[in-house]
């Protein structure tokens, strides 16, 4: 199953994004951003399922918390950036 990592510019934003998604009925987990893919040390993401990606982005944009970058996380753990 594919998941997506919505990269936030800080932990505070990731927390707010996670809470916004929960309020919208979307399961979201805060995770550290993998440095190998993002190039950022100690970044934070919220992880959502492929099915919920579009409504999640819509909910975050509406709340002014749109993700800075988006990464696809495959079942085998491979991470690749998705064009916004």
């Amino acid at each position, binding site marked *: 199953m594919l998941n997506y990592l919505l990269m936030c*510019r*800080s*932990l*505070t*934003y990731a*927390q*707010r994004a996670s809470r916004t998604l929960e309020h919208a009925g979307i399961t979201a987990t*805060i*995770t*550290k951003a993998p*440095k190998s893919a993002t*190039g*950022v*040390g*100690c*970044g*934070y993401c919220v992880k959502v399922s492929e099915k919920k990606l579009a409504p999640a982005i819509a909910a975050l944009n509406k709340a002014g918390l749109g993700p800075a970058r988006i990464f696809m996380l495959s079942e085998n753990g491979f991470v690749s950036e998705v064009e916004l």
Partner: protein
Amino acid sequence: MIYLDSAATSLQKPQSVSQSVSRAIKTLASPGRGCYRPAMQAADCVLDCRMALASYFGVDEPENVIFTFNATHALNIAINSLVSFGDRVVISGYEHNSVLRPLYAAGADICIVRTPLFQPETMLESFERELRWAKCAVCTHVSNVFGYVLPIRKIASLCRERGVPLIIDASQSAGVLPIDNSVLGAAFIAMPGHKGLLGPQGTGVLLCNHETRPLMHGGTGSNSSEVLMPDYLPERLEAGTHNVAGIAGLYQGLKFIASKDRHCIADHERRLKDALASQLSGIDGLRVFSTNVPSLQTGVLSVLHESIGADELAEQLGKRGICVRAGLHCSPLAHETCGTAEEGTLRFSFSPFNTLREVHMAGEAMKKIINNIAK
């Protein structure tokens, strides 16, 4: 023991504050140091408090609420963000050393607006005159010595009209008087967590509405490969480990304050101040710094005896279990403005937990002490 030194720090606090601090010490780690449970619970605790403060003080985004270690720390960040060497800074004649010393250290050209106690119109006229050439202004909301409520709304309005960024020192007003930065539009508002907000010592808050310059540099748990502090709040101004237990307690203090009617704490403390002022006003040789206009003074009362030193009175009261503060209260400027710099004053300051009975006992003790010494 009767504690009447809440302008220095709150001693009596809601039980939920100490319970929350104790729980935090046992269960919470550090935000931004991992995604494991105690770290994320700590992050949740910090964000909850940040959001509650933003909502309570009219701040748009919780990111603009910065946790500091006290109001002095918050004021230093604000002054460091706005003031460079030689900048003209207008301040009131009631500022604390937490404003004065950072401004002197920065090499600011300080313009002091010295106006008498309880005369807000005179102060406004002086501020209006002096703001013309100012780079920024710093003004306390309430004098920590005299409880004088400065006309901060109007000063903020003058600053907005002239495009002068304003730093408000809300050390004596946060949690006591309404503060809404969506109305005031101040560049920064600094406050302690341990006074009117009833949190633990070691907590402070800076509300930001302006570009910032970090005072401290260090780990933030984010963007670690960058050599400079992040360019976004709150991380930009929060280097190092948070006082998570303190913030957990502060959150409970804020919830207690927010559960009350906006005016009830100030009204209660003013009633106590008025009662003590009335009780002391008949004592020979004692000058009582009080006004009958409620909007001009909070629950802080200074007195000065013509022949008995403030320190002597405080010591005698202390022996009777009554805790008050004497001297300059770290505000020599306020004393210079009011002509009390030589001796300082004896200060009584009240909290939501003080009672009229306690105040009456303090007043009686004052009468006895002065009579005994005068004999």
